[in-house]
């Protein structure tokens, strides 16, 4: 069931793909704003630069949390691409996220502190929808194993249209895109400086950037699961959805955290109740 080869492929290839995705993202964003934009390889230059810089810290424990964050983020993605249990993947993801939050708390600095609290609010906002997406896939395919969901012939997305839309909604939070970019303020400096990453510098910040690449690839893989019945449509859907996210990013102003939590919960509750109720009803009450 678990396929080690895919896990190794993920560990080696994901940062390349993730970095390129971010590079293309920045290029398209620039074009949308009528600019030329940085080279596609810019994210790699940035991370390369970060590793050339001196490591300064507020205290040594920060580095420990940054390392744990990347290790468990890689673990999450590797488990996912190896075809492991989807719920376990989600729990591992939470563990990784908590390490990032702890890194921000550890610095005992006001800006990273606010970032940490907001990051937790974000986790609280998207977590139900992500778990329910996994549950929806189980109801649709009778399995929690990524390997089985990915190779199913059932058109998952047609059975889970509501859950798919709900997942897209929280995907914006996970990709740290506007309007839900409340904890790190990726674009331009704002009232919380850089939120969770404020106190990280040099190599440790580089590790966090690489973790984001891994995370991006993992999330795109999750989107693919909805279209696993046809690889061609799957890849096309992943690309279209990412472009859609870029469009949303560039056309929306950032909102307050209250709205992030309330709207994601409301949407998660409505779509999952409606969608799952329909599925249960169609199969006679029991999945």
């Amino acid at each position, binding site marked *: 069931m678990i396929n080690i080869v895919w896990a190794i492929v993920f560990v080696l290839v994901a940062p390349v793909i993730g970095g390129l995705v971010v590079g293309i993202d920045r290029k398209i964003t620039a074009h949308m704003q009528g600019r030329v934009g940085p080279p596609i390889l810019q994210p790699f230059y940035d991370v390369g630069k970060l590793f050339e810089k001196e*490591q300064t810290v507020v205290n040594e424990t920060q580095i420990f949390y940054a390392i744990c964050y990347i290790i468990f983020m890689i673990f999450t993605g590797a488990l996912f691409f190896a075809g492991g249990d989807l719920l376990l993947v989600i729990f591992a993801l939470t563990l990784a996220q908590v390490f990032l939050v702890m890194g921000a708390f550890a610095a005992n600095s006001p800006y990273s502190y606010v970032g940490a609290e907001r990051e937790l609010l974000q986790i609280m906002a998207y977590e139900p929808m992500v778990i329910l997406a996994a549950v929806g896939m189980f*109801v649709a395919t009778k399995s929690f194993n990524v390997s089985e969901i990915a190779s199913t012939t059932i058109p998952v997305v047609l059975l889970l249209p509501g859950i798919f839309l709900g997942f897209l909604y929280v995907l914006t939070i996970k990709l740290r895109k506007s309007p839900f970019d409340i904890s790190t303020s990726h674009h331009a400096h704002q009232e919380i400086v850089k939120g969770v990453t404020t106190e990280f510098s040099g190599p440790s910040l580089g590790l966090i950037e690489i973790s984001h690449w891994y995370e991006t690839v993992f999330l795109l893989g999750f989107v693919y699961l909805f279209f696993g019945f046809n690889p061609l449509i799957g890849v096309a859907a992943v690309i279209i959805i990412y472009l859609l996210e870029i469009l949303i990013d560039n056309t929306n102003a950032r909102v307050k955290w209250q709205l992030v939590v309330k709207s994601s919960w409301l949407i998660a509750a409505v779509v999952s109740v409606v969608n*799952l109720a329909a599925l249960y009803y169609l199969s006679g009450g029991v999945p």
Partner: protein
Amino acid sequence: MEGGYLVQTTQLLIFLILFPLIAAFFLLLAKKDFERAWIVKLSALAIGIASVYLLISTYNKGALLMSAIPAEPTGIVMFILGMLIAVFILYLGIVYKKWLVVALILVQSAVMLYFELVFAHSVHVQSNMFMDEFSIIMALIIGIIGSLICVYSLGYMKFFHEHHPEMPDRRPWFFAILFLFLAAMFGLVFSNNLIWVYFFWEVTTLCSFLLIGYTKTEEATNNAFSALWMNLLGGVAFAGAIIYLAMFGNGIMGMTDLLASGKIIALIPAALIGFAGLTKAAQLPFSSWLVGAMVAPTPVSALLHSSTMVKAGVFILVRLAPIFQSTVTGYMIAMIGVLTFLIASGIAISQSNAKRVLAYSTIANLGLIVACAGIGTYEAIWAAILLIVFHAVSKSLLFLSVGTVEHRIKSREVDDMNGLIVRMPKIAAMMVIGIAGMFLAPFGMLISKWAAIRAFIEIPYGFLFVIILAFGSAMTIYFWAKWMGKIISVTSDSKNIEGEVDHSEWAALVSLAGLSFITTLVFPLLSTKLLEPYLMANYGHVAQLSQDNIIIMILMLLLLIILPLSILIPQRKHKHVAPYMGGRTTTHDMRFSGSLGVQKKTVLSNYYLHEYFGEKKLRTAGIWICSAIIGIMFVATALRGVFL
């Protein structure tokens, strides 16, 4: 050979019930500190060893029914003791003018008196005691975690009375009740005769009442009485179940007979006992007694929350689960449980007092266990028992470390624990392990939550439960993580104030921290050797995790153990700079000069989101909704009882 084994096991069970009583008696007499210390330590050791021995000696032998004890005299003794307890409570109720308590105890005693006079001779239970894998698991929790808490109390209570000279020092009484509590719990899990169960049930109610009111302050007394009336309400329901069985149950009075008798007879008494279980497990609308119980010294809270009292409530529900399975009654109980999980997790977000956070988290997790019991499928029960085990370990560890910290920093506020990792590194590490055990993969609580999700999906329209669970579990992450963040944030100026932690406190803490790793590591063993036989015997199905997932989980655990060791690797010292304060120069303790040169200190506080998760708002809503569901449960049960 077989007979010898039976006798031997019976003796072991009786030892477990009676030995703590003897210890309690001597503790009442012991006036000197060192005498008490020795009695507590040796008895704790004996109880711990006996419960482990029980596990070993009954290994792979399955369930046992025991009829060796003469029922008649024991029954009379229990009846007399029960009446004495009632008189005692009645007296206290009148003295303190708690008329609700008086009314409830009168009703309850009247019912039991009526039963004793009219039905007692017609009821005959073949086997008064029994034991299976689930009882062994409970016995291990009581015997190991319960006695560790008793050992911890030695150091804690000494410190407590040294620093609170205004409180009367009633330690002999305190320790005696702790051990009495353990005895009652052992009695509860090994009794088959429902009248015995009822008796031990009432003893636990009494013990918790006395322990909560230990300090005799006005708040403590009031909260003790509020705990008392809620549990007495459950007691009345329990007594009602006994009377119902006596009147309509063809003389059934044994737990095993009740389970075997089918839903038609069993459903109504099961619903009544289930109601008693809900009160004892502090489910909404009865959650407030457990929160109020926080006024007691911390080891009492640890005992009530982890190994005794509330666990008695869920124990009885899990026992009765086969009766609840796929009935409206069961679904309503499950709904109460899962709503309690949601609402209590929400309230925990708004709490700044560490003990109240723990209290609401206990209520939430008990809610999850109750939900599993109400659903009653084999997968749900598997999850429920795992939750009981892992919750007991992590929660006792957390309470005890909060207790130790509270004595050092003189506060229970989460915000005052800022930088604990610098000020009290060892205890902070214990606390972090406890918190991680409560909500992070790969620790046991999360495995159990995972199992619960799978169990809920499989039942008809179970998605409703899953959705509520998903939201509740997201809130759990929030309140645990923000607390953990407080502890591990490094305040570089703070001094280490850990000092000499009392060695008995320390021993208990280290053992529990070790246990939380060990239970997670040996959980596959726990599952195959204890849970699977139990499920096989009671449900004919076995729930388990796949091999791959177990390996992955162990891998994660090993990573979590190894990664912190990386701190030991010598590395180049990095350049230290102060946190960014918008360009403002700060000193290392985060002081900066504000306008007009006034020195200010940076204070960081958690978010509590009162506006959304305020205690009052959520609790009121929860009480109304859950009371309504209890109403529906009884109506549905009654209808089914009448029409079938």
